[in-house]
């Protein structure tokens, strides 16, 4: 009865919680505190930061990275990785350009872009799950193929969008207030949340990524789950490609280089484990906002743009170290 702790007294309570609960709390919500801290610091450091316009811009800018990150978190949680999403952005862009040239119809162009990227995601998934190849290797190679396809389709040329209304997807606002990219990000986040936290598929993703043998023993279709994770990643990359094309008002085959880095960084900062089986959708969203705040903050503070990539790299290392430290207690 009573106190089961032995030894020289109990560990001090923090925020009214004991050590284990506190660790769990920090692990789950620590990253939100980091984001809030950044908001506070930037509000004081730059007068332009805390305005509706600036916050709106930050969210619009990170919207496409966020859509990519939602696909990436599902793939990583299932135990894989997708390095081809940057190339898919370019292929989606050139597909939009070509379809608009042929049909002038925005819906057809968007559908074609998403379809083609979803199909390529399916191919990635089959190679990984069906042929048991390493996801890193498969998507490293497929990114070359996909980017090449973009150049072949476009002949290396970038072209103006045949339908001038298309750019509204990236530059327009609903009720002249909420930029469409933010709404798209919201939609994709909600879909991802439902998939990962409310459906059987989500449970399978966590199971396959967490312990593949246990998942198989429990009757989970590992192959199907892994393939689907890549299909979703491809579909989201197609959507992100549409946003990017609209935002730059041109179809270009050489865009999207390095975007997979930001997506991975967002996942890691948001608490996703590279070992698989550990992630949250809200965490990923916070991760991408933090990355956006870094870029925005540094631009507002007139820090040279080369330092931004250094800071981003250090942040990923910091996030992983913090994650490892939190988990050491278990």
């Amino acid at each position, binding site marked *: 009865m009573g106190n089961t702790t032995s030894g020289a007294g109990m560990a001090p309570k923090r925020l009214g919680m004991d050590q284990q609960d506190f660790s769990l709390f920090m692990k789950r919500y620590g990253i939100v505190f980091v984001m809030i801290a950044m908001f506070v610091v930037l509000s004081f450091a730059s007068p332009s930061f805390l305005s509706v316009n600036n916050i709106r811009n930050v969210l619009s800018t990170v919207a496409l990275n966020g859509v990519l990150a939602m696909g990436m978190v599902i793939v990583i949680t299932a135990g894989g990785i997708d390095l081809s999403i940057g190339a898919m952005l370019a292929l989606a862009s050139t597909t939009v350009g070509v379809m608009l040239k042929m049909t002038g119809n925005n819906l057809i162009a968007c559908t074609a872009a998403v379809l083609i990227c979803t199909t390529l995601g399916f191919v990635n998934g089959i190679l990984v799950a069906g042929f048991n190849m390493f996801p890193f290797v498969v998507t490293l190679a497929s990114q070359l193929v996909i980017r090449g396809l973009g150049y072949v389709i476009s002949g290396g040329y970038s072209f103006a969008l045949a339908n001038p209304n298309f750019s509204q997807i990236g530059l*327009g606002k609903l009720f002249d207030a909420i930029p469409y990219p933010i709404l798209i990000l919201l939609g994709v986040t909600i879909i991802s949340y439902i998939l990962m936290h409310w459906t059987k598929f989500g449970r399978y993703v966590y199971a396959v990524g967490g312990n593949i043998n246990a998942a198989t023993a429990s009757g989970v279709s590992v192959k199907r789950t892994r393939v689907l994770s890549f299909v979703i990643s491809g579909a989201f990359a197609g959507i992100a490609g549409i946003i990017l094309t609209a935002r730059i008002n041109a179809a270009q085959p*050489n865009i999207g280089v390095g975007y997979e880095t930001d997506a991975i960084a967002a996942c890691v900062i948001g608490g996703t484990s590279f070992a698989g089986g550990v992630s949250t959708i809200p965490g990923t969203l916070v991760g991408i906002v933090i990355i956006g705040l870094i870029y*925005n903050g540094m631009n507002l503070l007139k820090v040279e743009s080369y330092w931004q990539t250094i800071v981003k790299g250090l942040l990923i290392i910091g996030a992983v170290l913090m994650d490892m430290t939190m988990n050491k207690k278990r």
Partner: protein
Amino acid sequence: MKRVSAVVLALCLVLGIVVCTSAGAQAAKKPIKVAYLAKNTVDAFHATLNGAAKASLDALVAKGTIASWQLYDGLTDPMTQVSLIEDAINSGSNFVILLPAESQGSAPVVTRCAKAGIPVIVVNSQTNNTAELATAFVGSNDVQAGEMMANNVIEQVPAGGKYAHMMGIVGNSAQQQRGQGIANVMGKNSKWQSVGDYAADWSADKAVQFATDVLTKYGTTVKAIICDNDDMSSAVQAYCNSVNRKDIVCIGVDGNAGPLAMVKKGTLRTTVLQDGAAQVNAAIALIPEILAGKTVQKSIMVPFTLITSKNVDKYLK
């Protein structure tokens, strides 16, 4: 003994003459294989340039001036170009057209050609040893392009204000020289202040991201965004237009299809056309003259053209 030596010496002399003559004859008959070292095959501007080069080089092959030609993709990487020149020489190329990826990094290519006695024409941008070692240079004066953009901004907004500069990949001579040209003109003008040189890497999406924050920070005091290429300037202008900042003058260099279409539509005021096709065609036109042993002009500059709604129809692609 003396007689024998004399005969042997005479024989050697004759043999030497015969060998040299036959070698000379072979050299004269040696087929010309052109190595076209492209900077890349993925930028819109270079895609146009490479397309024009293909047509002109194919024509030279059809005429019989050269036997064959091959494109080597530099992947915008000077190290790649340095190893490609070795591949080209090893596969028998004896004439080189070089579009440098970087002014310093790609210089060894020109050095290598000079060492191997291979004529090299540098096109579009210069390596730092072009004047010294290359057979000829055909390009445009990127400093002039920078100055043209800056002068146009001053003309469009006489009251002055703040401006941002979106750069190309740092190290490329086009980026360095356009920046220099902009600084030459804007630096002397007290009505204009720079709010920064942003590393947008020729990339439209990066330029838009930077522009978003520039507008947030500086608001209505920003009057111009000068970009090293017009993929960037057209995307930034589209963004400015979407946030009711049509007053901001965005200008860039190249004259790609997208920006020209925007000028035609009136959503982009100006762009500076770099006639890449003219540059590469002028370079290829030098090949028969160089092969015939004629002296050619060491440096040919193809001028830039300021494109507005008044003259865009002539250049629409």
